[in-house]
């Protein structure tokens, strides 16, 4: 790991690993806080399904699609700079999308627009309640995405590798409020479209329920790895690098390294 960290010039690295096959747990710098980037969407997903499990939110409830949000700092309105990952949601501007579809777009395409719409629906406090109820203290969600005033005020969403791993284990165990809620979250996570992180270090038949997160200085991936021949494992890899450095393949390399260790020397 240290060689990979050095090779990719990472400023910081956090890893949390739990293997359901061997029950081995291993971590590196796993309680260090990182900017969450889009891994915070796992917490939003948990908040949505908490409300669903409590019958306080229907997954087919319509949500008005609009690109206008309110800063947590001074309640000033702001708009997101929309990218390709928002295209599906943006196509419904002025119309409504069901909560379920927004949750799907938030995770599988990492849509910031879907994320902020869902944060508006359930509220930040609900997300914090959800994390507290699950006993997770390694994820801090204070705001939605691209709230620049909040960012400038130092109000950021943060995660630790252990925090994300704990949430993923609870989902994998079917203990996120109900087996049904957990299964639904897992189903969405398995459809992740961005595969340059953990999946890139695995055989092509591996299925990974995961969420990526990257901004100019961090590149993360947090997932549950399902392989044909063994029980799954949970792996969270958080990386931080200097702003002038390009995003590297560090996450994929670490994922590959761990897979090879588990599979033995014969693994490709």
């Amino acid at each position: 790991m240290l060689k990979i960290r050095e090779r990719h010039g990472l400023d910081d690295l956090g890893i949390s690993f739990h293997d359901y096959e061997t029950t081995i747990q291993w971590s590196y710098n796993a309680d260090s806080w990182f900017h969450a980037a889009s891994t915070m969407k796992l917490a939003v997903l948990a908040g949505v399904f908490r409300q669903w499990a409590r019958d306080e939110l229907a997954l087919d409830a319509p949500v008005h699609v609009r690109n206008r949000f309110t800063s947590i700092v001074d309640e000033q309105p702001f708009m997101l700079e929309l990218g390709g990952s928002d295209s599906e949601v943006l196509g419904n501007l002025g119309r409504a999308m069901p909560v379920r579809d927004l949750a799907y777009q938030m995770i599988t395409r990492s849509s910031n627009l879907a994320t902020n719409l869902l944060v508006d629906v359930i509220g930040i406090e609900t997300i914090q309640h959800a994390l507290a109820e699950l006993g997770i203290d390694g994820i801090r969600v204070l705001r939605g995405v691209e709230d620049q005033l909040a960012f400038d005020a130092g109000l950021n969403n943060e995660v630790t590798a252990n925090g994300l791993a704990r949430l993923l284990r609870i989902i994998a165990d079917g203990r996120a409020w109900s087996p049904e809620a957990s299964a639904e979250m897992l189903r969405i996570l398995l459809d992740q479209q961005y595969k340059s992180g953990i999946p890139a270090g695995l055989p092509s038949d591996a299925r990974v329920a995961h969420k990526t997160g990257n901004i100019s200085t961090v590149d993360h991936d947090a997932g549950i790895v399902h392989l044909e021949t063994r029980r799954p494992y949970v792996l969270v890899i958080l990386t931080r690098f200097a702003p002038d450095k390009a995003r590297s393949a560090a996450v994929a390399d670490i994922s590959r390294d761990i897979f090879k260790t588990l599979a033995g020397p014969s693994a490709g």
Partner: protein
Amino acid sequence: MSEEGLKVVDAFDLDDELRSLLRPGEMVRDAHERRHRLPRYFYEIPTYEAAKQIRLTPNFHLNELIRVDLKEAARAQTYPRYVPCAVRALAFYLQRFRDQLGGSVHIAVNGGYRSPGHKLAVAATPHMWGTAADIYRIGNTILKDQESIEKCNRIAREVSDDFWAMPYGHEIGRADDHVHLDLGYLVIIPREISEDRMELPQLQPRFAIEERRRGDRRVSGEGAELETDEIAGSVREVPDEA
């Protein structure tokens, strides 16, 4: 079906839950602390199918003016639903706006009538009177820049001085991602209505239209029914073209 097929109700005669949501005759303050009296007379829309069929103008059906999302109180989304009678005036002006514009006008979800129980109803807004429309797209064009929004606003003002268009801007009370048009706090009292609350409804039938069309409206299967067809993905968008 035309609006004549709609029953007019005095919201004071509705059940407790609906009255608490619609708050007929109550005074509410707008963002400038001005006080306005909420409407009392509503059209009753028996089913979603009826809402789709009722054509208020050549290009606007009633369902286009009552689309809401989960911010609306569940009871206010359940059929039979209620919309202030002034909605027909809104449709009239929107039709003139559409004719002037020469393109289809899409009223957004939450962009037409919103009950006072809607979560966006923090202060009085003409949306609670059924006299406001939020438009995010004209035809296939999304209104997201100053030029397109101000062009629509200009056309709306040309249509009638009665139409107020929210100015373009980023601050509260301005719009930078849609066109907002409204007729103010307009109330329509149907001519067959007597406004005397002392009259007993059962002795003084006031629903002349209802009496004529009762058979048409009370179709089997009406009742609790949430509309679903405006949810993207699962359903189709109903355009405002006839």
